């Protein structure tokens, strides 16, 4: 295996297609030492999120007072993390759906990992509002159903929009992910035996690859991509409206929807690098996820970083220009108050550090890509924290200002959420074709010249 592209493309088409099947199916057969690294990582993640689950159980037993949340900051690390993980979920869709519609073929190799990341990130994000509820078992009150209380949910509340949008996003992302897997499941089915064949036979849903099946498949896939492209923008816009519709200084801004969408795509792309830089070694798919693909992600990161920096600048400018003293005070507080280190860390990680990707050498260095992707994710979490917490801590009246610090219980839950995310990501990506086989073969056929075929 090499870091140079074209190792597969250099072969004659039938041989290249066979090689694709062989290489991708090999990722499903774990051999030592990969087996040890893989199951070791899965086991470690299971251990960490089990600890977090115990903390949650303790929180349910004793109450939310074990967190640092207290008036005036009633939205803390849990809501921050909810917004962060929803953001992570967005890039999967960007890579898969939007780049598919734009015919950006380099997406193919990364699409499976990105889509899997989306589903797992939404699963992670969905935990936090329930954690934040305190009485987690009453989460179903968000669902509109006839009940003995004689009450319906309030559809004017952004929290209901949120639940609808995130639920829709999870279902549609899952359908999109599963649909793309059907032809690949058929390839696995045809090359396995015993219980594995039994499972993949059911997952492939009888796929045989007739021309008509491909036509229906492509129509459905393209339509789902188009639907998801608008959905991804709407979901994070709605998440931003959780804040923007409130008259809280630092939140009440018309730029919040595009600002959040850009931030989400930015953090999701960074997380994709965090996962795929080591993942391509672990899964031995370096012929498919090449350094060129990672470089393209880095280029997108620079573009998103510049857009995000523009949003920061725009927010600051209007806080000053519109002359609202509370808005100005909020920004002075962010830059010089108790949360100033996080504010400046955000700018450093999200606006300054990604500029390193302007250098081709940095973009093609996997260590630098990995390190900077972590830096960006730290920056994005702290950005969400500053938006959520600093705004609530410094509202209109000086007598109701306060400070919030996450407790050790909250930090444990946050670490557990990262472990939960990695646990499911590793489990899924290790048991499905990690690179879309059918689509990679489609690229090979597309680039192959026709020889003596009657018109």
């Amino acid at each position: 295996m090499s870091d140079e592209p074209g190792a597969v493309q250099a072969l004659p088409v039938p041989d290249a297609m066979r090689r694709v099947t062989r290489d991708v199916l090999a990722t499903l057969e774990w051999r030592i030492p990969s087996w040890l690294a893989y199951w070791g990582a899965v086991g470690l993640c299971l251990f960490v999120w089990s600890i977090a689950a115990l903390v949650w159980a303790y929180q349910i037993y004793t109450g939310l007072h074990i967190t640092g949340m207290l008036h005036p900051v009633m939205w803390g690390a849990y809501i921050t993390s909810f917004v962060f993980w929803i953001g992570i979920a967005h890039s999967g869709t960007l890579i898969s759906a939007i780049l598919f519609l734009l015919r950006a073929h380099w997406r193919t190799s990364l699409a499976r990992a990105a889509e899997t990341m989306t589903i797992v990130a939404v699963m992670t994000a969905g935990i936090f509002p329930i954690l934040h509820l305190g009485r987690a078992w009453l989460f179903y009150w968000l669902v509109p159903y006839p009940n003995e209380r004689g009450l319906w949910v309030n559809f004017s509340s952004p929290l209901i929009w949120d639940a609808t949008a995130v639920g829709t996003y999870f279902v549609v992302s899952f359908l999109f992910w599963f649909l793309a897997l059907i032809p690949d499941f058929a390839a696995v089915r045809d090359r396995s035996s015993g219980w594995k064949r039994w499972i993949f036979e059911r997952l492939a849903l009888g796929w045989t690859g007739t021309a008509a099946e491909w036509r229906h498949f492509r129509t459905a896939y393209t339509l789902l991509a188009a639907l998801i492209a608008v959905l991804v923008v709407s979901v994070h816009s709605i998440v931003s409206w959780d804040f923007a519709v409130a008259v809280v200084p630092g939140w009440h801004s018309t730029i919040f929807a595009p600002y959040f969408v850009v931030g989400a795509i930015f953090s999701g792309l960074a997380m994709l690098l965090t996962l795929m830089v080591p993942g391509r070694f672990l899964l031995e798919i370096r012929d498919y996820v090449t350094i060129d693909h990672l470089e393209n992600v880095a280029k997108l990161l620079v573009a998103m970083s510049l857009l995000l920096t523009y949003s920061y600048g725009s927010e600051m400018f209007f806080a000053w220009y519109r002359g609202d003293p509370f808005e100005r005070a909020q920004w002075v507080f962010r830059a010089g108050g108790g949360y100033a280190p996080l504010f400046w860390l955000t700018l450093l990680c999200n606006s300054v550090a990604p500029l390193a990707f302007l250098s081709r050498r940095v973009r093609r260095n996997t260590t630098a890509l990995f390190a900077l992707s972590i830096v960006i994710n730290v920056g994005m979490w702290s950005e969400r924290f500053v938006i959520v917490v600093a705004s609530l801590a410094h509202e209109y009246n000086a007598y109701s200002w306060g400070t919030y610090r996450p407790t050790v219980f909250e930090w444990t839950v946050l670490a557990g959420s990262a472990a939960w995310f990695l646990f499911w990501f590793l489990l899924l990506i290790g048991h499905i074709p990690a690179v879309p086989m059918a689509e990679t073969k489609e690229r090979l056929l597309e680039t192959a010249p026709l020889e003596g075929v009657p018109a």
Partner: protein
Amino acid sequence: MAIFERRDDLLAAIAETGARRVGGATAFAPAFDERILRAAGATDSPVASWTLAGGIAGAASALAFTVWTIRQWPTLVVSGKPLIPWPPLLIIAFELMILTAAAAAVIAFLVSARRARRGTRGAYDPSLSDARFGLLIPCEPARAAEIGDAMTMCGAVTWRIV
């Protein structure tokens, strides 16, 4: 059922079945290829119409449901604002439109794909999901050898009667 190693041989074989006036051939491919689909006459799909219908039904039922639930409240203090707040209801309707359109697209795909592979069950070969192409040609038993020879001439690596 003829199996081909190369896409170009399959395209030639499809043209050959047309020249021999053998209709209803089913082509198999390991990946999506527009040329094969066009040659095999797989140009239309009902999935788009189903998706549109699903989207319209989802948006309409979401609007109807949200308006109905608001009217179920025995008393609702709205401070002079309209009882039915359209902007938030449109947000809910939009999300449900996407949800039902996506679900309709997948259901339509599953139903259409199942219909498309009807009658091909015994003909399928596992190599078709790897790198080979196939052509299932319905014909009278008397013509099987003739068609088989024609497929071999087109480049079929093997053929069999199913």
